[in-house]
């Protein structure tokens, strides 16, 4: 079944969580199963929504999960069920 937007967001944030809360772009690209272009678009949106933040570790660009991002992961099943039930 085709991934919905919240499925993709979940996959991205879960990938960061599984890496201990911090991930480099290459790993995120691989784990999220998106094209580079689409990943960039999603990253912009996730940053805007404060679900993740950009940072630097040892001069490398990294993405870190925020508390809001953790909240999203925690509520994901409810969110998905609600979104599907009410067609949002």
């Amino acid at each position, binding site marked *: 079944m085709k991934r919905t937007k919240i499925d993709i967001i979940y996959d991205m944030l879960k990938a960061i969580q599984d890496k201990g809360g911090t991930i480099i772009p290459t790993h995120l690209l691989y784990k999220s199963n998106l094209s580079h272009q689409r990943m960039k678009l999603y990253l912009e949106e996730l940053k805007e929504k*404060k679900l993740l933040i950009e940072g630097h570790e040892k001069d490398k660009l990294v993405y870190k999960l925020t508390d809001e991002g953790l*909240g999203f992961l925690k509520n994901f099943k409810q969110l998905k069920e609600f979104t599907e039930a*009410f067609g949002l």
Partner: protein
Amino acid sequence: MLNIYLPRPEWFFGVDTTLEAFAGIIALLIAFVSYKLYRSTNERSYKYFLASFVLLGGSFLSRSVADAFLGKFFNVSPNIIGLVFFGGYVGHIFLALAAYLLLIASTYKIEDKRLLVMMFLLLVPGLVFSASYFLSFYVLSSILLLFITWAYSQNYRKVRSVTSALVFGAFILLTLAQPLFILDMRSNIWYVFAHAVQAFAYLMLLAALLRILLKR
């Protein structure tokens, strides 16, 4: 001519107040859960949905208060009763119509706010200049709810979950309840049926909500 009075059986005074308050509380619960989830995602689609259920909750609570005063549960002058009744029902009508419009925006993914404003402005004169507020309101509600139910039927066909079936079923009943309120003009008992159907619809929405909250 102002005509918003709905004849009802004497024994139903108080029952209708309770059922309307019940519907209002469930709508507000749905709005509350929607708000919590909106905070997790900041998705715009949740905003219209959230607003629609806040308005729906306000609409039913407004009517519940109006019916409570009509049922003479408060020891106040007839003038106050008339004022509260009128204000309550007008509030109910306009809040409900606004709620249904926002729900249409949410279900049909209408982004342009101007369209929504235009739709609301088209509805209002039709209502205000009609011979009977309640008749116009129930006809307009039936039409809006028909489109909302259609959207939920499409959603159920796509998703095929028990929760989406409950939502679809609830809106079928809500749509059915509207013409039953109109039939009240022929016989009081239709008012009772309409309320029963509406209450059952909100019970189904509550069941859907509980299924969502229990998902871990």
